[in-house]
């Protein structure tokens, strides 16, 4: 009895899963009997297949569940109380307060755990006791100057850079130097949450030509699906024609994730 290799490969999993009909299973068994090497392979595979799911997995801790509930509560509260910040030339833009809260929560929660794992080539371990930004105090109120923000954006610790981005979000209008620093952050920062926060702030300045150009220039530098999708959605929102070419390059890359590809195609369609 003959069978193409690809057909054998496909049927073998269905056979091990018990998904074949009685007749199909008999035919497959007859094929195995006629091909002792394949029979040996399937017998070995059956042992592995049967034990794959028995490997123990620890339970997620109660603390993790409790943490998520806290995050969810915080998000629900934030989404029902959006804040409005006046932007220089952009007019009034609603800044998603939940993003700032999520960044802070994520920053505290994730940075210590895995963004800065020991041995990471780019980031040192966070210093215990590093304080995250107090979002209730604006840079103007706290006396922070653009220079202080620029310094924060160059800090080696991601939570500090996030603090810098959040301080820009709280400014009524940022000057060109700060805007350029944010654009640079979007291209070079090693931390996805910092880059995402930078995009959210820059959204409020998209009527400034250098911001639009900078956002387009940042597209080819993003390897995070989150950033790729976020930037593509923003390009569609502001109808930035010059973004189509770099977005298409990502779409055509073989290694681009399918969900990203679909989202980017949708954004390009909206732009055109």
């Amino acid at each position: 009895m003959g069978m193409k290799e690809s057909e054998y490969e496909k049927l073998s999993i269905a056979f091990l899963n018990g998904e074949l009909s009685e007749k199909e299973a008999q035919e497959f068994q007859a094929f195995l009997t006629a091909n002792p090497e394949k029979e040996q392979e399937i017998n070995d595979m059956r042992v592995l297949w049967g034990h794959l799911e028995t490997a123990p997995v620890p339970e997620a801790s109660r603390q993790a569940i409790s943490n998520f509930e806290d995050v969810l509560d915080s998000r629900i509260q934030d989404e029902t109380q959006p804040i409005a910040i006046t932007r220089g030339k952009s007019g009034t833009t609603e800044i998603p307060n939940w993003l700032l809260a999520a960044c802070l929560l994520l920053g505290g929660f994730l940075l210590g755990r895995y963004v800065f794992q020991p041995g990471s080539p780019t980031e040192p371990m966070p210093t215990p006791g590093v304080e995250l930004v107090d979002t209730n105090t604006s840079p103007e109120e706290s006396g922070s100057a653009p220079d202080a923000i620029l310094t924060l954006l160059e800090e080696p610790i991601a939570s500090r850079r996030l603090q810098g981005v959040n301080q820009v979000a709280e400014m009524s209008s940022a000057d060109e130097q700060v805007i350029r620093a944010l654009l640079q952050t979007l291209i070079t920062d090693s931390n996805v949450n910092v880059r995402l926060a930078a995009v959210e702030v820059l959204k409020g300045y998209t009527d400034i030509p250098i911001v639009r150009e900078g956002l387009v220039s940042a597209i080819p530098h993003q390897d995070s699906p989150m950033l790729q999708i976020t930037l593509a959605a923003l390009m569609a929102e502001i109808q930035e024609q010059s973004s189509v070419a770099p977005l298409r390059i990502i779409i055509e890359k073989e290694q681009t994730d399918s969900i990203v590809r679909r989202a980017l195609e949708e954004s390009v369609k909206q732009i055109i």
Partner: protein
Amino acid sequence: MNAPTDMSLMQQVQGGDLRKMGVLYQRYNRKLFGYFYKMNGDAALSEDLVQNLFIRLIDYRHTFSGSGSFASWVFRTARNLQYDHFKANGKHPVSYTGEPWQLSKSAAVLAEDEGVREGLIRDLRNAMDSLPAEQREILVLSKLRGLTFIEIASILDCTEGAAKVRAHRALKALREIMIKTVE
């Protein structure tokens, strides 16, 4: 009264009722934790990734079109998260350090001897870690309770047949790792 479907809960989340994401979290938390844990072997990291994933689901709730199952969408997002993390931090397959196994000959012993079974499970985990991430992933997804190959195909953006072929090849690679020194 029937429990609300994942789809209807997600539609309520999209409509602004974020509390329903908590119900979806309860339903999927354990499965997603299992997925991450089997991919990276780190419980604390896996807890973080599950939390980060649900925050993403809230942020990107508008991208759920409802054309596929909620499970497919969640696991596609989980894959992206896992990809992002290891792109940033790097993780390479380790070398297999377990014993060589005569698998089918061990079947009868495995059924009776718990010590042998534990040894196999330990070496199996070691062999899984030595697989390339794509192969480890298809096996992890294949064995997650409740995920069908149609959903796995949707997660991997391929046909059901192609997903099964990938699973076969990954299982074959696993076998070769574990029996290598016997043959």
